[in-house]
């Protein structure tokens, strides 16, 4: 029971991820009207439009003229993640997260992390890919990342049938397992980069309580974006970097109650400014 409690957020995340995929699937297969469409654009309860703001951005740079629906849908998504969730899309919704988390878990079990790393990719590469996808879209007149995005390939695969999608997903699994730790989500994926940017100031944050910390570093080991936990054992503050995916793995593995969810702490950021 204690073990289950220690996996509460993980279990909840899997339920949300797979549940959403199932709702999309049921929207097509059984005609349920809860969620129709795909992660690119969908309709909630046959009325509320939702749309992927990054896809809209690419299509705009490709020069598309679009209906008003998708802009409303994109605004809803931007506001939700911008104000509430940060990069929660990545860990709570995105289906590719299932694959990369599996690769990451295997890496830990097979002790692949302990071996010296040969392939190196910058954490900032995703912002270059983001910029590049907008440039390629503008030059080619086609939403460039949408065309190759494993996220929507996986999502459509579940809804409309997989075809050869498995190859793309296997490639990401192998890249994350043997190539770079958290290679896809933490280094390459421009959608992750995009949500890092809009979620920079979102409210729900992980909070570190320094006096409780025993420096066991379990949280850093398990965190997919370990650079955001720079304050572990140093000072009590909230994780304020946009790259945090709010997956709550750090909270679960912490045996000392040094980490937990809280609202963004504007007070401490101010206090930090006073210290200077």
């Amino acid at each position, binding site marked *: 029971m204690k073990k289950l409690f220690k996996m509460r957020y993980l279990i909840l995340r899997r339920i949300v991820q797979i549940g959403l995929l199932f709702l999309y699937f049921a929207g097509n297969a059984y005609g349920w009207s809860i969620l129709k469409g795909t992660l690119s654009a969908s309709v909630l309860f046959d009325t509320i439009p939702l749309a992927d703001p990054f896809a809209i951005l690419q299509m705009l740079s490709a020069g598309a003229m*679009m*209906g008003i629906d998708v802009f409303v849908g994109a605004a809803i998504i931007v506001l939700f993640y911008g104000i509430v969730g940060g990069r929660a899309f990545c860990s709570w919704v995105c289906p590719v997260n299932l694959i990369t988390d599996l690769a990451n878990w295997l890496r830990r079990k097979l002790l692949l992390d302990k071996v010296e790393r040969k392939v190196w990719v910058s954490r900032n590469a995703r912002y270059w890919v983001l910029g590049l996808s907008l440039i390629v879209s503008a030059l080619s007149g086609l939403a460039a990342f949408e065309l*190759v995005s494993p996220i929507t390939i996986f999502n459509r695969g579940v809804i409309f049938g997989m075809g050869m999608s498995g190859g793309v997903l296997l490639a990401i699994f192998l890249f994350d397992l043997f190539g770079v730790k958290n290679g896809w989500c933490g280094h390459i994926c421009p959608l992750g980069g995009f949500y890092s940017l809009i979620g920079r100031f979102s409210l729900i944050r992980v909070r570190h309580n320094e006096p409780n910390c025993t420096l066991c570093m379990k949280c850093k080991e398990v965190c997919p974006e370990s650079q955001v936990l720079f304050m572990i054992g140093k000072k009590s503050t909230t994780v304020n970097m946009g790259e945090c995916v709010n997956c709550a793995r750090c909270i679960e593995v912490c045996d000392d109650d040094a980490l937990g969810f809280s609202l963004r702490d504007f007070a401490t950021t101010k206090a930090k400014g006073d210290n200077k």
Partner: protein
Amino acid sequence: MNTQNPKKENKPKITERRRFLTIMAQSVGLSALGGIVWMGYVEEAKASPLLLRPPAALPEQDFLRTCIKCGQCAEACPYDTLLMAKPGDGVPMGTPYFIPRDVPCYMCTDIPCVPPCPTGALDQKSVTTVKDGKEELDINKARMGLAVVDHESCIAFWGIQCDACYRACPVLGEAITIDFIRNERTGKHAKLVPVVHADHCTGCGLCEHACVTEKAAIFVLPREVAMGKPGDYYVKGWSKKDQERIKQRSLENLKTKTERSKKKPQEYLNMDEELYE
């Protein structure tokens, strides 16, 4: 920084400025490399000309940039006609298309696939008519493609009686008509051959689906592929409306094409020269 080893002092110093510029140059170079490869892939994906899109789809290039690949058109289709392109289909990934020989478009009168499109890649206006001041959806205005008959393999052109495509056509008698041709082989029979009319054909593919030959002898192609273009030069002398065009044409725009056509016909006849230069 590297003053510990005296031997290395002659080496150029990696200053912060140099480091910054080098890293910038590396990043830009790598991005350009990635961009070029990516661009090549995207251009390759765009170049699949034999696709049939859902009704009311914008012209292919506009459709590709406007379609958000959400699949709501495919979900709305009651016949599962519309497919969402998967990796390996040879179709720009994630875009809707259909293969009429497998499942044609059944031309639903309420066109369920078009209104759900959130971006307007399926342009509802193009399949709407105004009737008594009211806007009405009209699937007959759809132009998904154009049916083309291969005379060589169509058995009706052999003289065997078959009107499967004609019967299957939802715009029967307008998009496909039957022409009677004298059967020269027997001398006393007629061949009843199908003829497609581009003005009325929606490209639904029901004819292709119904065709009895092993591989369909009537098939739908995208309009840009299936149709020719006579240009402005030819005028139908028997059509009053077409004749109007002559009045609007200014002779200044007519250009002399070759050296020889500058001369008058008499000159050419009286000249002693080779017929073909």
